[in-house]
């Protein structure tokens, strides 16, 4: 059966917060066992989608199925097969590691020796045995994240939702967190859904969906998405992008598009073109870069703006 292979199916999903549309007619499918990234700037609808999947919100239109169950019709079944890790650890800092895990186990009906065994197992796996009786607020940020991850895994869910799980972690701790995630996938055959605004995190996923202003702009394997833009892409920075794009097209007969404030030149041999380009347009260029396309470029090409908004707009979301 095809449906049983999909961990998550989203069909024509629209969500409105009052008059504001957070998600517009979104459809996507996450295969079982996949590490699936949701990449988008702040306010693109990632967190809303996560909350809808986690049954915290109900869709305005369309539907979501998790493990084959509709989130509106069978929220309890969906909740049982989902583990959720939020942007901030959902832990009580004034309780110890074990006390926190016991409390959260209760939410899933776990208690007694069965819960103790599960906690033992997770503590060993996450290398936190000696922190067992430590108050959570005394742990480092990375350790708190690991405890929070254990919390999400207590009831052995089939799908783990992670909403910007490395917020506030330094690069080293972030790297370690992802290493843990990779190990988890191997041992537990988990489906991971990771919302992130970080390119390097999205690139580690098997598949990504790029979200912008509540719309799905592209989805697929990160390398495939990037490769679709060509092997190498030439980017020109200039104060007058429209004029330069037009000039490139007339002089060299290659496609040049204005994207944001840059010009993307789709040349088959960018290296050969570059010297000629400088001869003709050198005075009007600030810089020219040839590089392999990244997800950032994919995002830019599909939306016309950068993944990372200016700090002012980022703060308002």
């Amino acid at each position: 059966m095809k449906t049983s292979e999909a961990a998550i199916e989203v069909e024509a999903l629209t969500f409105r917060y009052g008059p504001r549309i957070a998600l517009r007619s979104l459809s996507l499918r996450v295969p079982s066992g996949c590490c699936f990234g949701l990449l988008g700037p702040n306010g693109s609808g990632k967190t809303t989608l996560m909350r809808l999947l986690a049954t915290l919100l109900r869709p305005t239109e369309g539907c979501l199925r998790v493990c084959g169950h509709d989130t509106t019709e069978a929220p309890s079944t969906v909740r049982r097969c989902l583990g959720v890790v939020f942007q901030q650890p959902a832990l009580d800092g004034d309780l110890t590691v074990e006390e926190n895990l016991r409390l959260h186990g209760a939410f899933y009906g776990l208690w007694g020796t069965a819960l103790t065994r599960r906690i033992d197992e997770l503590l060993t796996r996450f290398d936190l045995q000696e922190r067992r009786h430590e108050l959570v607020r005394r742990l480092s940020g990375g350790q708190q994240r690991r405890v929070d991850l254990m919390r999400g895994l207590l009831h052995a869910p089939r799908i783990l939702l992670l909403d910007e799980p490395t917020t506030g972690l330094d690069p080293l701790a972030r790297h370690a967190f992802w290493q843990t995630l990779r190990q988890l996938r191997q041992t537990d055959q988990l489906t991971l859904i990771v919302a992130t605004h970080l390119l390097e995190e999205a690139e580690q996923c098997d598949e990504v969906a790029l979200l912008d202003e509540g719309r799905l702009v592209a989805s697929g394997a990160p390398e495939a998405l990037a490769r679709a833009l060509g092997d190498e892409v030439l980017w020109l920075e200039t104060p007058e992008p429209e004029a330069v794009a037009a000039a490139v097209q007339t002089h060299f007969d290659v496609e040049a598009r204005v994207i944001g404030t840059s010009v993307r030149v789709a040349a088959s041999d960018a290296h050969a073109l570059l010297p000629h380009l400088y001869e003709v347009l050198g005075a009007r260029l600030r810089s020219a870069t040839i590089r392999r396309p990244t997800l950032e470029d994919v995002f830019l090409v599909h939306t016309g703006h950068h993944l990372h908004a200016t700090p002012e707009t980022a703060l308002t979301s």
Partner: protein
Amino acid sequence: MSATLQTIRMLWWRELIKFVRDRARLSGALAQPLVFWLLLGLGFHGSIRLAGPATPGSYLAYLLPGIVVLTILFTAIFSTMAIVEERKSGLLQAALVAPVPRMALVLGYGLGGTTLALLEAVLLLGLLPFVNGVHLTPSGLALTLGVSVLTGLAFAVLGFVVAWHATSTRGYHAVMNVALLPLWALSGAIFPIEGAAPVLQAIMRLNPVTYMVSALRQGLFGPNAAGSVSTPEACLFITVLFTVALLLLAVRTVRRPLRL
């Protein structure tokens, strides 16, 4: 079912263990009502003439049941305040994505706050030997403790409902203080209903807290204690009714999807 019971038990236990670990909270929650009691009691000592035979320190005795209610009120406000934050970012949100029925969360948080309120009320009753006119019978004690539990549960559940809607801790405090302090002041806790202006008398009769204070009065000082507004049975009945009404309100509140 086991998730429901376990959740109630663990949330209740969490409230107690945190309280024990935080000594400042214990003393703060006790000191405030104590100061209130002494300031008001000694301050109005000679100004307020209560009906009946004047006995020394009678106003301090009159004030005590109201102070117990105030303590319960403060404790409930304090213990449910964390919900505002935990709903948006932390623990409560994790509970909401778990299969446990939301009513278990109301009861878990509510009973935690209730137990603390009862604990503080009992500690305050340690002042009884220092006031005049105490007439404590087994049934009176049962009434006092029963009404303390109900009052604690009612206010803790009310705190839960307000916290569910509040967008910030400040907003929560504003609502709780603006709503609850006048309710307390108009409960006959500081002045008897008979002496109040007719308008206030009507409001006081409609105020459920009036019956909680009165029930405590009758539990501690006997059925005909100064300041009682009805029979102990009627006061207890209205207290039960108020608590059940708030529980039903909480059930309705948590059933709706969360506003974030």
